[in-house]
């Protein structure tokens, strides 16, 4: 398969993730869609790495995974804190920070 197919898949997954962030109201699911977008980026990175024959892209993908893990940790910690304070787990209800 030529590399273009992988990039097409990556683009599709990225757009799907973006749409998911906008549509869903559960912050957990929004985080999951964020994961989708990150993974799409990973796929593109690895595809390009394969194209150039350079392993730098794969290292980048690894670091992205690290970052995603950290972000998930904090995000879930926030959601747990929300749940602990009996706040609604719904991004449309949580809108105190407004002008």
């Amino acid at each position: 398969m030529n590399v273009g197919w992988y990039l097409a898949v990556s683009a599709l997954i990225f757009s799907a993730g973006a749409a998911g962030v906008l549509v869903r109201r559960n912050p957990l699911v929004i985080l999951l869609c964020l994961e989708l977008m990150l993974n799409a980026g990973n796929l593109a990175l690895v595809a390009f790495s394969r194209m150039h024959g350079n392993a730098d892209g794969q290292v980048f993908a690894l670091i992205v995974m690290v970052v995603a893990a950290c972000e998930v940790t904090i995000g879930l910690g926030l959601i747990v804190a929300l749940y602990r304070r009996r706040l609604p787990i719904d991004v449309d209800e949580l809108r105190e920070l407004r002008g």
Partner: protein
Amino acid sequence: MSPTTWGWLVLVFPLLGLIVISLSWRRLPGRTAGYIGTSAIWLAFASAVGALVSLQGRVPADRQVTSTAFNYANSVGVDIKLTILIDPLAIWMMLIVTGVSGLIHLYSISYLGSDRGYARFFAYLNYFVFSMLLLVEAGNFAILIVGWAGVGAASYLLISFWYRRGTATEAGIKAFVINVIGDVGLVLGTYFIFKHTGTLDFLKTFDKAPDVFSSNEGDLVAGCVLLLVGAFAKSAQIPLHTWLPDAMEGPTPVSALIHAATMVTAGVYLIARMWPLFELAPSAEDVGAIFGCATLIMAATIALTQTDVKRVIAYSTMSQIGYMIMGVSVGAYSAGMFHLFTHAFFKALLFMAAGSLISAMAGEQSLDRMSGWRRALPFTFLSFMTGGLALSAVPPFSGFFSKDEILLFVGNLGGWHWALYVIGYIGALLTAIYTFRMIFRAFFGQPCEEAKELEQGHLAHAEPFNPQTGEKEDTDVGFPGPEHHIAERERPMRVAMYALAVGCVVDGLIQIPHVDNVVSNFLQPSFEASRYFGETEPDGLLIFGLALSSVLSIVGIAVAYRIWVQRPGTAARIRERFALPYRVLVNKYYWDEAYDAVIVRPLAAAGQFAQQTFERVVVDGLLVGGTTSVVRAGSATVRGLQNGFLRYYAALLLVGVAGVSLYFLLSSS
């Protein structure tokens, strides 16, 4: 010492008096402020005498001396220096101003003795004298304008001296506004003259004037007429005269000093000083003469009907200044100045005596309530008689010689000036009538209550009240003090009035026709090369004038005697028969009402419109409100973007990213 050094000293003393009183008045006990103020003026008078002696020590050709203190501004062709000009005309005015002021200060020491604003009064008086001296000693237009404005300010401060009286503050504002109109005329007139001569200095202007202006040239006439506007405002001539009767709200010494002897004569001085310009613009001279004459007769007729004693004297002042303006406008400079001198004496004396009379009446100023004070106030009565005789031009009092000289000069000019001559003598008759009307009504007849009390030795007392409106007042600061002081009981008042009375009698002696010419000779160097100064009057007209004048004054006194003393009730019958003319005269020819309708109300309405409608709707609503509402709408829109919804923010992010990548896509293709 040179005349100009003396001239500077004359200026310095009143200024020092002002500064000392202003800075230390809290620590000055009793009447010290009064003594300081009075001594300052007497020192100035001594310096003026010193200047006179020093000037007379020079040859006549050398008697116009200038001295510059420093250069104030020099740019765009305008050179303003602090210069004084000492010449006979200036010395004449300086002596009159400092001399009469000194006597009035002396009078005020006891007249205002119980007033809470005592020190303030003397500070204001010293400030006034300083400004007036600056005006008469000015060597260029700029300093003249400074002095002019200064006396206007002093007039306002002193008219509204009892500032808690509503009528007094209104009168002060009225005087100041009309004065400002005159100031504008003065400045514009200066401009018109400066435009061609290029210099503000007096001597240089007068030198250049014949070269730069042709006779009756437009700009020169305009400039001189505008100077006349300034003179009329300051000297209370038609049509800018309405402030003078209202200015009687001020304390009586103020009326004596400012509105009789000195400030109102500033207009006369101005025309006399500017004689080279006026002689090049005969049209302006005619304007001045006509307005002076009109004022003369109008004021005399109004004075016949007024009941407030101070207002009678005020209209008398207006009338006499009309004589002076008429005199200096037609070229009778020394005659006008002579009349200014004699008038200062007898008018100040009349005001002082009126002050004493009003004090005896416990503040009442209306002639309707006064009668029979002859026995209770003998000294005041004598003063009134002396001043009244001088004012009515009864020989051999001073007024006789001075007024007569002006009319002689006018008659001598011939042509249409005969009308002025005739009107002048009619005015003289009326002067005698209204003056003695006032004296007979106040001092003859049955004594009124207050007079009877004073004959017993008890000075009348009453609740403090406003003489014009009758409303009650108290005697705290801003109102007249609780005590009233009459001349019979206060020595300073008597001394001052003695000095003025002596002057009224003997002043005429210095310019008796064909006997001596002290005034003309003295003033000669100032009016060198004047077209009119050297003219001599024919004897026929002189003798006729003297005789007519004597006859008219005696007749006037007799008429007044008959109406108000011999046959009581005559006055009431005359008033009934001539009800309409009486009403017009009592209402002062409705000048105030006319001004109110034509100028004051439209301006007030315009101001009201500007404030209520324009300010509120256009400025606040449209301009300020419009811009702020635009800003507010914009910020509301932007604020709407921050609604707190996470997904909304994410959507905005996405839209932004899509837009940016679109841009990059397009730019790279």
